[in-house]
């Protein structure tokens, strides 16, 4: 889960990382008030998850509280990459002498946390030359030892008090990763301003699997579509909206991806990724089918290889939705595995003939999705 910048900065402040003076507000009047409290020129930053908000005009500067009010009103009226701006961060404007990039994340291949840092901050790390980037893996049992933090400061050219502050910030970023279950703690830019090192931005991503033990971090679902939010509320294992017209359900992430790939290779457009999970049962599957319907697809394609998932459960769920809610579009089902015969029989009763092979079923789904196009 990606956190908004202001949440990231609240976490930073809590752990002692210096951040600019400021506050998140939701109205232009409050923005004026915060600017007056700060008593210096301010920056108004839209709180959206998109990275390119500066280019989109979502960051404005103001010299007086009155200007801050006007700028805040402008930003609050904006939509950045499809998301209406609801919150803004009003902060003191820093005198920037130089910008540093620093991030801690987890390198799955190395099975270790990794620190990535560069003396050239401000721009995207992937746009930087390889020789400007310093990358160090950490031993999970040692954590980030002070000597390493100090040496990283040296390697990006910092000395004296600045080096000390930088090393201290690194230590605190590492603590955030471990104690807040963060997958990513990124500061870009970390700025040097009047002999101080300050986090001008904050990107913190919390491990979804650890949200159960990070309840004090506000839940953010801005990067989810309406149907994705519905799917989450319905408890559907895993769902991503993709925008095509063939709604797809399968069980297991791998086979769901494989089903999407096959549909696309045959010339169809998947509406979504939906891993309905293993052993979901009749009720859960019926809810999942309703999420498929919510996308107004031309075809529904269900691909089940029953292991823990029982074919008769899936068939009963389909029959239930068909009888009680109605399915206004054709349904293509491929079904093999646990309780296959019973599943096929139940489907036949409601007029659905199940396929055995994934290939034929995928071809049929694509064909039906194109029906009427030529006419």
């Amino acid at each position, binding site marked *: 889960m990606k956190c908004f910048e202001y949440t990231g900065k609240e976490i930073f402040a809590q752990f002692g990382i210096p951040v600019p003076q400021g506050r998140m507000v939701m109205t232009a009047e409050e923005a004026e008030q915060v600017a007056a409290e700060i008593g210096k020129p301010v920056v108004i930053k839209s709180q959206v998850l998109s990275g390119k908000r500066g280019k989109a005009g979502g960051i404005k500067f103001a010299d007086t509280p009155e200007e801050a009010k006007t700028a805040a009103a402008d930003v609050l009226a904006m939509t950045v990459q499809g998301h209406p701006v609801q919150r803004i961060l009003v902060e003191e404007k820093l005198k920037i002498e130089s910008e540093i990039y620093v991030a801690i994340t987890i390198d799955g291949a190395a099975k270790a946390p990794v620190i990535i840092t560069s003396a050239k901050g401000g721009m995207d790390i992937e746009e930087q030359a390889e020789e400007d980037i310093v990358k160090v893996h950490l031993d999970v049992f040692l954590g980030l030892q002070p000597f390493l933090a100090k040496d990283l400061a040296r390697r990006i050219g910092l000395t004296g008090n600045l080096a000390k502050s930088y090393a201290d910030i690194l230590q605190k970023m590492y603590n955030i990763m471990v104690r807040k279950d963060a997958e990513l703690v990124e500061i870009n830019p970390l700025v040097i301003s009047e002999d101080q090192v300050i986090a001008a931005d904050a990107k913190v991503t919390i491990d979804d699997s650890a949200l159960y033990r990070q309840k004090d971090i506000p839940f953010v679902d801005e990067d989810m579509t309406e149907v994705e939010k519905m799917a989450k509320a319905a408890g559907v294992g895993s769902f991503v909206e993709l925008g095509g017209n063939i709604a797809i359900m399968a069980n297991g992430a791998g*086979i769901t991806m494989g089903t999407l790939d096959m549909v696309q290779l045959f010339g169809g457009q998947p509406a979504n990724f939906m891993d309905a999970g293993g052993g979901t049962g009749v009720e859960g599957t019926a809810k999942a089918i309703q999420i498929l319907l919510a996308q107004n697809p031309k075809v529904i394609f269900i691909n089940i290889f029953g292991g823990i998932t029982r074919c008769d459960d899936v068939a009963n769920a389909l029959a239930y939705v068909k009888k009680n809610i109605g399915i206004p579009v054709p349904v293509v089902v491929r079904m093999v595995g646990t309780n296959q015969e019973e599943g096929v029989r139940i489907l036949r009763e409601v007029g659905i003939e199940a396929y055995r092979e994934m290939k034929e079923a995928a071809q049929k789904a694509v064909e039906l999705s194109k029906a009427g196009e030529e006419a």
Partner: protein
Amino acid sequence: MAILVDASSKVLIQGITGKQGTFHLKQMLAFGTDVVAGVAPGKGGGVHEGVPLYNTVYEACEHHGIDASVLFIPAAYCKDAALEAIEAGIKVIIIITEHIPVQDELIIVNRAKLKDAVIIGPNTFGMASWKCKLGILPNIAFSPGPVGVVARSGTLTYEIVGSLTNIGIGQTSVVGLGGDRVPGSTFVDMLKRFEADEATQVVVLVGEIGGNAEEEAAEYIKTMSKPVVAYLAGKSAPPGKRMGHAGAIIERGKGTYEGKVQALTTAGAQVATFPYEVVEKVQQLIRRS
């Protein structure tokens, strides 16, 4: 022959009395797995489905020689259970559980490395060799034979292994690495074992987008004497979207389908476009040898 475990392996199940543990214990026993003990805190001294129960892993190890442990433990308690198995000296540990926090996975996986234990998973169907299934792979999918299978995802493996079995091509071992960001074992770890296993003639690799495990596998495949057939899922996945598995995401231009296909093809592996093509390619290779 097989890799990691075989029909003689003595198996422990942690979380044996839960709903999932019980269901899969029965399936594993029906498959022929030698389950010698189960751990269920507070139920030590009892018997479950004919298997003796212990309160801790240490206690189970005092009474039985344990070759492998399978964990059916809720995510929040998995770190403790896995560390217990590692510290008790068990050398093959299968973690079925999904949604384990990545910070916990880092501790488990790195501790296992220090203690010379092999972790399979987390978030996996487990593995199977002849008469020794550790996990949740459907019993009917597996049959004994000359093909080694290593995969990141479960149901896709059932699909491919089931098709192989249906046309009479069996497997030495089938291993699921799991779909998480920090898997205990990698393709390379398992490819090395299949390369060394005399009974394995052909290896099937089932990968997916995200991370660089397939690219690393490609480097090793260059040095292998045995042919490798690969299938990768996620060709149609857009960047930045997590496709069910925590590890199945294209981030910052890394982990793309095209990059992985290129690496594997260059290394000499045959890459199938569709799952059913895997079976055709394996069939040709077996016929040739």
